[in-house]
């Protein structure tokens, strides 16, 4: 197979060996879950339950507060015990609903629609919207919004993102191996909804068995194709994936629909399949618990809102001192101050690092070595943007591409002077947003 890729990028060690061979196992029912009202891009959901109320697993507990928002469901049965601020999967604190379980795992009624593949697209979309599905690769864009392109932007291609280019993480990989057929069905459903003629599943070359399996599943499907991609970070970034798979360039500041493409994570496709066939809300997902300190790294099917500490405990705890805990992958994930945080709909992994790997190195002067320039997949000059932010010159930062940066971290990964380029650029993005708000 001809492997495709995009310009720029880096090649970190993939470190997937910790959990790559661990089959998906169901995590034990947590005693308490915390369902955040803001697990997605868009406005926070509005609670529809009160403290003290009994809920079933799968029951709606917070509803979308607008079109670009999301429904949230109870992931266990029990009683609502608090609506308060809790630690978010990204380490900050935000509003959430706490449910204390009754240990019975009583569910709302699910269906098994026989002819689900022929449902009208509007009904399919309604079920996705009701199930509270958002992009499960990390960014968390509400899926029903992504599947509602405006009339003047016809979609001809749906790309499923099975790249999983973040080091360590293996949840998408295991899901493809174990639920491959359902993912393909999910892809077909998504294609029906947006009226696309072509479906592509993009998988990185370090998962040859997943590529082989998908090729087998798609052997009799003339409009569906597996695209093997070179091992290169950030291959799974939306614009880079679209470019590698179709050679189309999404305009800067634009969305994939501008070039007739919709990209969905393979996990999202699986959730779409379950939502349409069973009307099952998104209350559980696969998460990789991995890293050198973890005793038995694994891929767990866990309920949304489960505290990370319980998941680590289930994986046998730790065997060495933990220096850093990362919610997500090591390139773009969030370092958590403690394991008290709970998993969300976008939690694809939890990576633990020992003290040696977590050690912070001192920042030096920029050498102008241009390694960051060579690797930037967006063709920017990261050192220049960072320097502009440092010198409080926002205009220069913006003209140098502050808003084109997607914070993939390739630049900071290679910087020999250990300059925290992403941190500076992020600071710039925040200052820019503040300046824009002040203008209004």
């Amino acid at each position, binding site marked *: 197979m001809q492997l495709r890729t995009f*310009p720029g990028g*880096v090649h*970190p060690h993939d470190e997937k060996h910790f959990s790559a061979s661990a089959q998906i196992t169901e995590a034990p029912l947590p005693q308490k879950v915390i369902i955040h009202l803001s697990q997605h891009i868009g406005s926070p959901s509005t609670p529809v339950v009160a403290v003290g109320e009994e809920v079933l697993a799968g029951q709606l507990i917070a509803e979308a507060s607008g079109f670009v928002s999301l429904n949230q469901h109870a992931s266990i049965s029990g009683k609502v015990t608090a609506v308060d601020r809790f630690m978010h999967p990204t*380490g900050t604190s935000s509003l959430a609903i706490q449910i204390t379980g009754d240990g019975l795992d009583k569910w709302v009624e699910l269906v098994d629609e026989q002819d689900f593949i022929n449902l009208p697209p509007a009904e399919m979309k309604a079920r996705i919207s009701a199930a509270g599905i958002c992009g499960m690769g990390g960014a968390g864009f509400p899926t029903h919004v992504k599947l509602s392109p405006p009339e003047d932007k016809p979609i001809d291609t749906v790309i499923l993102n099975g790249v999983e280019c973040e*080091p360590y993480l293996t949840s998408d990989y295991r899901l493809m191996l174990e639920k491959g057929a359902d993912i393909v069905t999910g892809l077909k459903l998504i294609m029906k909804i947006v009226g696309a003629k072509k479906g592509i599943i993009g998988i990185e070359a370090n998962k040859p068995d997943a590529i082989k399996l998908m090729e087998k599943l798609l052997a009799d499907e003339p409009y569906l194709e597996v695209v093997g991609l070179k091992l290169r970070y950030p291959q799974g970034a939306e*614009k880079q994936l679209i*470019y590698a798979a179709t050679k189309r*360039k999404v*305009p*800067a500041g634009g969305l994939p629909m501008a070039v007739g493409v919709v990209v969905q994570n393979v996990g999202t496709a699986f959730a779409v399949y379950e939502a349409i066939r069973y009307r099952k809300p998104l209350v559980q997902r696969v998460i990789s618990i991995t890293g050198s300190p973890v005793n038995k790294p694994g891929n767990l099917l866990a309920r949304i809102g489960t505290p990370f500490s319980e998941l680590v405990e289930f994986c046998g*705890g730790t065997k060495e*001192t*933990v*220096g*850093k*805990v990362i919610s997500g992958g*090591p*390139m*773009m*994930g*969030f*370092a*958590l*101050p*403690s*394991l*008290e945080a709970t998993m969300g709909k976008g939690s694809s992994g939890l990576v633990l*690092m020992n003290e040696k790997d*977590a050690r*912070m*190195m001192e920042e*030096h*002067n*920029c*050498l*102008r*070595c*241009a390694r960051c*320039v*060579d690797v930037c*997949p*967006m*063709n*920017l*000059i990261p*050192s*220049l943007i960072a320097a502009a932010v440092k010198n409080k010159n926002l205009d220069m930062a913006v003209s140098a*591409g502050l808003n*084109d940066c997607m*914070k993939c*971290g390739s630049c*900071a*990964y290679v910087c*020999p*002077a*250990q300059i*925290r380029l*992403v*941190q500076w650029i*992020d600071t710039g993005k925040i200052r820019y947003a503040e300046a824009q708000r002040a203008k209004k």
Partner: protein
Amino acid sequence: MKDKYIVSSAPHFHDKTTVKNVMWNVVIALSPALVFAVYYWGFRSLLLTLLGAVSAVVTEAAIQKMRKVPISVADGSAFLTGMLLSYNINPGAPWWMPIMGSVFAIAVGKQVFGGLGNNPVNPALLGRAFLLASWPSLMTSGWLKPKTGSLSGLNDLDAIAINLQSLSPKAYDLVTGATPLKVVQTLRDSSFVASINGNGEGINLANRIFTNITEMAALKNLFWGNIGGCIGEVSAFALLLGAAYLLYKNIIEWRIPLFYLGTVFVLTAVFGPIKGSGYSPMLPFFHIFSGGLMLGAFFMATDYTTTPLTKNGRIIFAIGCGLLTVVIRLVGGYPEGVSYSILFMNVMTPLIDKLTMPKPFGRIKK
């Protein structure tokens, strides 16, 4: 389980490259040239190199102490600058030369601008330019003969003319007393050629010297460094060995050396021959193996701080270096032009950067 972990911004993963290992790897890559220098000229060349390197380190530490900033000499960049500076001086130079050069290079070339990463031009080359302007005769004459060869790389003087010494004392002095590039430059001077001898044989003799110095036997000496020249520049072989290591380690990139050497190669092939010498296919090889070009192209023109950021910018930079080197060598008053051409292009770098700003992915041209 400890419950407070390190919180920092992503990415939480880093490749192994640090400033320190970049700099010390360049030092390692430069060492084969020093081995050759010690072989040709004895331990004097090692001593001069160490004097240059150590005084650069001491100067940097002293100035950083005065500036009340952390002392960063362990990163190896000052050591490297001192080493490069010493590589650019005559092995027969007095002991204080590398010290003078290094102090100037670090103090005026680097620290006044704020240290590592802020210098507009290559400090080692600036140090060399300072020495050349201050002690021109010490820098351009009094070359040491390599233990096994001659200054100009010519092994067999009889091939030029039997008893050249009595036939033309001037020509004899030239081919025994100058470096290969100096010989070639002098032969471009028509008044010199006319004065070689009175019988009107001048042009003939000049052409014979020119052909001999650019032919295979002399090229072999140039390749191994068996000629007169600066400590670190003579052995093209040793420098290529080091360059291969740096390319393999991904510390330097191939564009600058390739385009630099390529430009010199093409231009000297076209404009290199002297009047009446005819076309010599070996001439461009003579030019890329002689003087400081190998050292300059792989170790000085690839300096991160003073070269453009983008790939296209680096190509423009390298072609500019090549062009200027050839202009200085063929038309200018110096036999060698590598250091000045790199210094000149260093100064052009901000402009090249400005003109080669990349277009962000997906941004539509206005």
